[in-house]
């Protein structure tokens, strides 16, 4: 099992969700986040005054997927979230050691 942490543009969330659902990835966590990568924000100007926009609003989608789906998932996320411009986001992949379902106490396997 792997945890995929996808940081994407806010307007791309629906497309990413749809793409993952098509791969039968069911559970996901979506959060509003702010941060910067290479994009490092920019300077906006309002009424002649500059103000610094260093942290950009992004959405974070977290999904836990079986190892066999990891590559497909990464692919569809990137396809759905890509615009080609700086600021499209990142996908992080992390190993998941164990997973339990709280209601039943079951340990989940791939």
């Amino acid at each position, binding site marked *: 099992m792997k945890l995929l942490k996808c940081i994407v543009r806010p307007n791309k969330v629906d497309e990413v969700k749809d793409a993952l659902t098509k791969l039968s990835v069911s559970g996901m966590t979506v959060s509003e986040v702010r941060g910067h990568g290479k994009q490092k924000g920019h300077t906006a*100007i309002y009424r002649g005054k500059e103000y610094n926009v260093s942290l950009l609003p992004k959405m974070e989608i977290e999904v836990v997927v079986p190892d066999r789906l990891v590559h497909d998932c990464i692919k569809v996320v990137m396809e759905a979230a890509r615009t080609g411009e700086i*600021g499209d986001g990142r996908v992080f992949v992390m190993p998941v050691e164990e997973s339990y379902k709280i209601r039943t106490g079951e340990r989940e396997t791939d």
Partner: protein
Amino acid sequence: MSNPVPGPSTGSGQADGEPHRDAAQSLRTRLAAARDELSAATSRGQAGRDALARYAGAVDDLVAELFTDALGDTPQAVVLALGGYGRRHLCLHSDVDLLVLFGGPLNSAHAGALNELLHPLWDLGLAVGHQVRELDDFARIEADNPEFLLALVDARPIAGDRDLFNRFMTRVQRADLYAHVVAALVALTDERHAPFNATFYQLEPDVKEAPGGLRDLAAVRTIARLTDPALLRQGPSDSARLDEAEDFLLRVRSILHLDARRNQNVLSHPMQERVAALLDYPGALPQARVERLMGDYFRHARGVARWLEWIRRVAPVPVGPNLVKAGDGVRFVDATVAASQPESWLSAFQAAVDAGAAVSDDTLAVIQQHADRFGGHDFLPDPTRQAAWLEFLKPRPGLYARLSQMHDSGLLGRILPEFGAITCRVVRDFYHKYTVDEHTLLAIRTLERLATPMLPGTSTRERERFASLLQDLERPELLVLALLLHDVGKSGDEEHVAESVRLARGVFDRLAMPADAREAVEFLIANHLQMSTVAFRRDTEDPETVRRFAAVVGVEDRLKMLCLLTLADVDAVSLETLTPWKAELLWRLYVDTYNQLTLGYADELIDQSQSEVAQAVGARHADLPAEEISRFLEGLPRRYLQLFDQAAIARHVRLARDIHPDALHVSLEPKGSAWELTVVSLDKPFLFSNISGVLSSFGMDILRGHAMTSPHDLVLDVFQFTDRERFLELNPGARDEFIAVLENVVSGKVDVTVRLRRREQSPVHLRPRRVIPVVHCDNHASQRYTIVEIVADDALGLLYRISRVMSQQGCDVDLVLIATEGHKAIDVFHITQAGAKLSPAAQDALVASLQRLLEEDHEVA
């Protein structure tokens, strides 16, 4: 009257005759009989309230009879009793205060008739105090004569036109004057108490003037009457004790008058013995009788003083017609009257917001009980109330709570049945946590909170951003109205936005709203989901997204309103919906769109695709062929079409007709409380600077303006300005003079700098400086222009000086956007130099000169 006729023997000044003398004799006999009766009662120690009222009645009869003889045939005349006589507390030597009132203007016939009324009264030896007034004297009540207003509180008609009397009373007995009258009464009372060292324990008391005396007693009754009559049942003692005290004091006063044969009210030591005897106090020695009398006196005076002190402390404060603010909130003084005046109910809520109080429960109960009897029109029957309704909707502390009360009492749903229909409406979706009506009211609360000043250091930057947008709005109440109506379409099962718009149009008709206000509110309702969709679901980093959204919004004012409406709408969905993350996205879309509207608009030009505008304007104006309109429009920024309606476009096309290089086609028209100057010309050096200079040299405050140039060098400048000195309004030749000066300045015959300097040097035009000036130069926002954005203190001639510097530096000013927000001027210039954007060096030089100019301005002040 300055020249009273003294004594009965002088005659009345009328053509004498037997019957007349008989009539006079009869009056004298009747008055003498009445006075004898009162004197006899006084001697028995029984000339209290009843005896005095009987005497007042007898005097009434005399006055009525004389009035009928003298003025009975005069239409619209009435005689009133005022003050103590109005209260029927008429002692033997009290003043008989009369007001003779006429419905129309006074003339010499009236003067003669007045003599016929007043001379016999003087002849009878009565101390008549009289006033003669026309009803129109009371069109505006002078607040500086509180004693007169106070005397009117007890006014009652003796004879004449009752209808006139009623009309008069509605003018003077207005509760909005009551606050004033009560305050004046309190002040007069303190003033009167001062010579008595403010104590009622006087060894030789003045039973009328002293603390605890008759005037204090009248004050207690007046305050109760003007604020809350029920107070008389709640005071520090039974109100029967007040009546008792009054009767006692009047019986004493009657004796003093009888004995002194004049208006004498001091209960001196010698008089105390006589009064004690006449009032039949027991005791072997005079001293014992006096002690008993004075014991009673002090007991009554203490009671009166306590009442007065109590009622001054607890009396509600009048806050409007038939409205007072008491401990439990704002309520009707007379609920029975209010129940049949639905048009007055809104003012209870308005007064409550103003006073920072609630509307009291019993008032809400009255409204709830009677609301169903009336239709929407009954609450807002005329333009004044309709305007008051919009005024009420201004976002400010307390609005949400009062609107909620109004909703709970059923009034809101009666005024706006469209809103009534969403009461407790449940629409199931994944987001909304409250019923549709409460969601709407909570959204208004969000605006209210933005409008509420915060303690220094307690606000966040995020909040301040949106709060500043709200401050910029000229008519924030339209935003609240839009919020009230934005979801009313959810009462049905149709798509709610279109339905809300349809229902809102009915509301606009009922409120008789002007076209521009309707358009603004309708725009907001129709687009209330647009901004959140774009901000949260579209790629706002794509300039095309912003451009498209900017095209929907059109102008900055609407953008600000839509941004705030979106913020409030999202915030009211649930506690968690408006995250700082969402607020940030919204703010960024706002800034990008604002910049697009103010900086990028020069790139969006009118082209063939807008030909339907030309057709539409042409169809309405027979003298304007569509081709001529198209020719005029082509190449102007698209924004032009959003700024001006079809009538204005037609005006501009006409002004642009047959323009030749030296001509200046000018129109100068009043627009609301401001003026609008439209100048069409072919471009020439310093043109913009000269026009703004001329405006300032006439002392005009430029509020907003648009300067546009079309590719064929046609310049259209439109300025809105206020004329604080009312030069244009008050002087018949002023417009021509203004236009002549403008032409002379533009053609170079007159130097506007000289004209301006005269004004600039005047201390009247110095204004405090608050804003640190900002000059920002941008070469990227527009494809064709360098954009200079300037934010500075609004000052006389500012625009002139800025644009002059630009012209001096060889820049062509092609487009200008001028806005004034409070004391801040926000000007955006689109400029070129030799037909291209400015080089970096030229930009630096220009910014440096502008900075220098603005800093000098700043320091001079």
